[in-house]
């Protein structure tokens, strides 16, 4: 069951790393004579308004799209896990302060936080990745904290405490190891959101120059000639959908119902 999504993501990774091998054309080469031609054997997914090959742009876009999403998940998961561990294992006073801070961040939709940050940082793929990543930290931290608390109630942690083990050592030796599974699940779910959120910000024009393609930007480019040349946005639209679907499938049924206070729709 998990083979197909895994194969899809592996394929994307290979494409992202070895784009020049697969892409038949220069993704930025303008050819007005071939404006908006339908998919054919020459142009597998047709061409856009400027006569650029949509297939080549899609392949080149893989790198930027996945790059932004990977940057975002790094920025979300590392501080998120650290904050969650800290909030879950620190003493009473610290914990309530950390939670109050998270409460403020969680009172706003992730897209709003990302928009404020990206508007401040300026328009570039780096800004999009950073903004989307930072917007997810609070939600990740809260999920991490709740698993830490479950583990802390376990007998082996209490035994380690009773034996006089240092708190930091308990966290690293026992807690971290036992929340690794759920943390991996949160990371997968957040990664799916990161793809959707970064694509959305690119769609809105925040990832900078439209010459260098990413899927969200391409989706937006096709808007103007949706009826005459649907392939221009169909290709990136399908690519985003399949990738998010693959990540969600790998994340498994975990997401269902359990992250209800963290569910992040982008519309």
């Amino acid at each position, binding site marked *: 069951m998990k083979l197909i999504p895994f194969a899809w993501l592996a394929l994307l990774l290979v494409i992202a790393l070895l784009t020049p091998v697969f892409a038949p054309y220069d993704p930025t080469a303008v050819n007005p004579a071939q404006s908006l031609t339908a998919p054919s054997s020459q142009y597998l997914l047709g061409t856009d308004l400027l006569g650029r090959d949509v297939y080549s742009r899609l392949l080149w876009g893989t790198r930027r799209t996945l790059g932004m999403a990977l940057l975002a998940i790094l920025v979300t998961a590392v501080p998120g896990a650290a904050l969650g561990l800290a909030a879950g294992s620190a003493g009473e006073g610290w914990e309530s302060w950390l939670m109050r801070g998270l409460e403020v961040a969680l009172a706003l939709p992730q897209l709003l936080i990302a928009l404020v940050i990206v508007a401040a940082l300026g328009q570039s793929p780096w800004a999009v990745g950073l903004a989307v990543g930072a917007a997810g930290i609070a939600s990740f931290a809260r999920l991490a904290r709740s698993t830490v608390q479950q583990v802390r109630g376990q007998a082996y942690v209490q035994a380690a405490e009773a034996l006089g083990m240092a708190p930091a050592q308990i966290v690293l030796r026992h807690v971290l190891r036992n929340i690794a599974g759920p943390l991996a699940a949160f990371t997968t779910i957040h990664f799916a959101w990161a793809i959707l959120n970064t694509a959305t910000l690119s*769609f809105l024009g925040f990832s900078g120059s439209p010459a260098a393609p990413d899927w969200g930007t391409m989706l937006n480019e096709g808007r103007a000639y949706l009826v005459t040349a649907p392939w221009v946005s169909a290709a990136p639209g399908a690519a985003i959908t399949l990738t998010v679907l693959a990540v969600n499938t790998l994340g498994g049924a975990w997401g*269902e119902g359990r992250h*209800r206070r963290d569910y992040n729709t982008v*519309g």
Partner: protein
Amino acid sequence: MLTYLLRRLLAFLPVLWATVTLVFLALRLTPGDPTETLYAEAQISREQLAANRAALGLDRPLLEQYASFLSQLVRGDLGASLFTGRPATVTIFELFIPTAELALAGLTVAFSLGLALGILSATRPAAFVKPFASALTALSQSLPVAWTGLLSLWLTAGLFSLNASLLLELALPALVLGFAIAGPIAGVTRASLATLQNEMYIVAARARGVTGWPLLWHILRVALIPIVNMTALQAAFLFSGTVVTETVFARPGLGRLLVDSLLRKDFPVVQGLVLLIAGLYLSFNLAADLMAAALDPRLRARFQ
């Protein structure tokens, strides 16, 4: 009950203060200034630019600006938009109306579709229904709204004439948004029903011979709590503006207003919107808790 409500409402204040302060600082401490966008095209001299900054109060020390912002805020005044000169409250309120319209329509679609999909995939009335419902649920959580919006426009472009009727202006975006939100609601519904099916009081009801709709209602009453929670969260999201849907369907709304105001650094409007959105999230959360208590008597103990 009343003291509980008051306590919850009082707890809003520090959160609202913190969010609006953070945004106030984020807007002013980052590079870029509303006057730059204002005068980028107009080619106005440096002296005039400085005079305009002074007129807008942007040259005063940060702390002074913050103090006057707060003192205006407690009197219910968000200040005037730096671009249109109209009060931010008026601009926000005007665009809140189309936003609320779309939010209500989208929420209706999402709740009915999500509940139906969730019940179908939990109760399996026929063999083919369950994978179908699960597939729709998964798709709903994977399709970007920008793409479903464009797809729906493309599909209907052939069916209807280009001057879309009022029905299409609202129905199509509502369907697109509703579908995107139906997925998470369906997921919660299924998970909630699945865990409850083995509860003792359900087993007991079955043993007494309760079946069909009465049994489903018996389960749903408690199962609705997480569903209501999720719906409230999504409602807050819809009521705070949906920029992608508004962009795709060229609809006026708070989402577009937020992005445009952020891009040109229209401080009063952004601050007002952030305050509104945070308030909406907190209120919908509170509403969900109150509704949960109405549905499940065991939760009412919390209110004492």
